[in-house]
């Protein structure tokens, strides 16, 4: 068991490095967003996206993620995945495939930049026991089961990094749902799937409560 983990580690590191490079590319592209696009993105975000994702990206419904302060590269990557129909979990299919057709390639970066620039929602306290258990999992992982610490990629404060999304302040029900769809391979995320394939429902709830509280 230990040997398999050791063999996988360099692979994961390579994948993470590739992802970071990709993220750098997206960030560079976002920096080139035109002012007119930025204005249009802010207007559409307020008039259309806010219907589900809330004013300035702070959603009130656990069905829809909070986007305020989300990593710019992650947002752009997701919008491209919706447009290309490569992210195909049920909610992506039901809601975002259609919405993303309204977003031009040029506007993807403007939207990503807009939401990344918004003030993130403060954390929401949860069940202290769950938060404590989730915090341990987030910071240390479960080495004996090959579950690496979430903080390795998502940052020590769950702030995210590049294409690794910010989880801090995200609604716990949404986080649990994403863990479920990734585990069931309804949402394609090879890195995450490898890490969480044996995560139990209780562990999902705990780690989600922890990141929501951050």
């Amino acid at each position, binding site marked *: 068991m230990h040997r398999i983990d050791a063999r996988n580690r360099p692979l994961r590191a390579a994948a993470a490095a590739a992802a970071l490079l990709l993220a750098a590319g997206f960030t560079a592209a976002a920096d080139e967003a035109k002012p007119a696009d930025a204005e249009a993105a802010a207007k559409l975000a*307020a008039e259309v996206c806010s*219907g589900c994702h809330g004013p300035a990206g702070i959603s009130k419904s656990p*069905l829809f993620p909070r986007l305020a302060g989300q990593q710019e590269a992650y947002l752009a990557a997701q919008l491209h995945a919706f447009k290309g129909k490569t992210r195909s979990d049920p909610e992506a*299919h*039901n809601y975002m495939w*259609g*919405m993303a057709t309204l977003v031009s390639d040029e506007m993807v970066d403007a939207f990503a930049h807009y939401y990344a620039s918004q003030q993130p929602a403060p954390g929401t306290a949860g069940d202290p026991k769950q938060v404590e258990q989730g915090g341990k999992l987030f910071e240390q992982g479960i080495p004996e089961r090959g579950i690496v610490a979430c903080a390795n990629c998502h940052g020590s404060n769950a702030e995210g990094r590049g294409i690794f999304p910010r989880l801090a302040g995200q609604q716990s029900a949404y986080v649990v*749902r994403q863990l479920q769809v990734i585990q069931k391979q309804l949402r394609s995320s090879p890195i995450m799937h490898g890490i969480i394939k044996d995560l139990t429902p209780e562990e999902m709830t705990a780690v989600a409560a922890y990141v929501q509280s951050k």
Partner: protein
Amino acid sequence: MRRIGWIKSTLLVSAGMLLFCGQAGAVPLFARQTGEACEACHVSFPELTPFGRLFKLNGYTTGQNQWIPFAAMAQAGFTWVNKNHDDQDNLITPKTGRPEFSATSVFLGGKVTDNIGGLAQWTYNNLVVNPDGVSTTGHGSVDNTDLRAVGRHVSTQTMDEDWIYGVSVNNNPTVQDVWNSTPAWGFPFTGPSNVPAPAASAVVSGALAQKVVGFGAYSFWRKSLYTEFSLYRTADGMFTFLRAGQSQPPGSVPALQGYNPYARIAYNREWGGNSLMLGAYGLMVRMYPDNTMQFTPTDRYTDLALDAQFQHITNPHTYTFQASLIRERQSYGASYPATLSGSPIGVGPTPANAADRLLTLKLKGTYYYQRKYGATVALFSTTGDADPGLYGPGSVSGSNNSSPNSHGYILELNYVPIQYVRLMLQYTGYDKFNGMRTNYDGAGRDATNNNTLFLNLWVAY
């Protein structure tokens, strides 16, 4: 042997419709326009989610223009009436206990420009009963129609400035409303054709549907406060198209005098996966006793309603509740003196009281698991003043004690295998019908004799 034949027919109809739907390979109009799944806007058609409400309030304009702005739906099913013969052994509801294609609708509309959109429905009813009371025929007519021009003012800097505002031209009071506690899109969303129904209902609950034209203005502030004011008049002149195909025999339809006010206010709040609405609305109409004699004095109907809706929409559990209380005051300023003098106006009402009251209560709760398996329980109650002139004795549809009071319940099971198909089993039970539990019509019929079982297949494409 006959029963086996029916079962076979049912299977064939069901399979045929499923096959047809599968071959259609398309999605309804708004889903095509927005690219969204049906469940983004609907808990189950036509009940709207918060997202669906915003789509409607924004004038159906979200998304991309469609080259072919049409969608369609069809319904087929079985109806069973507990006792389907009157005291003279005449059939009450024709074509029960066997599969019948009941109706099909075509929808035209969606986005016209970024600020103009609409919904227009045309329905072909295949179960219009002929005068012989046994055979049926098909008839097409305009159904619910709602045309809008809208604007939106949202600040990108602060939450304080968020206004949706617009105007609507429609042909049914409350068809423009976005909460399903109002009559036009209220529960039951679909029901059996031609079955016995209680004699009394408020004017706002469908009596004016596709007979009138309304001009309204509304605003929705910070997704919190909805206000609307509309004026309704008979759909004649250039607005006749809003009742096209609707028959107009004397006395069968209402005709309004002038412009009649409708007002609506609703408080809306959304948090977590929850949304809550507390509201009120009112309609006051002046109606000619006989629609073919639009020179007589008029009767006045004043409806005031309180309504509420709660929805919890998450995955996999969704549950919703609606409540509605409508108080109607009927002032027979024209019909009562005419009746009293012995010469009623045309075929209009012949009330024995100068004024009557009616109180209608509806409560409904729905649960859906994975938006696929649903169950609904609803209770309804109508109470009001006894009036022998309005509610006289008569087989099946009459009242032996002149009372409009009816109470009952609806139980419904839903199965939505794919988003364009819904299979529904609905049971409507009465514990009081037109005033009494037993022998309510004076001809020996009991309230429970009108209990109805309805199996319905609904397909949209």
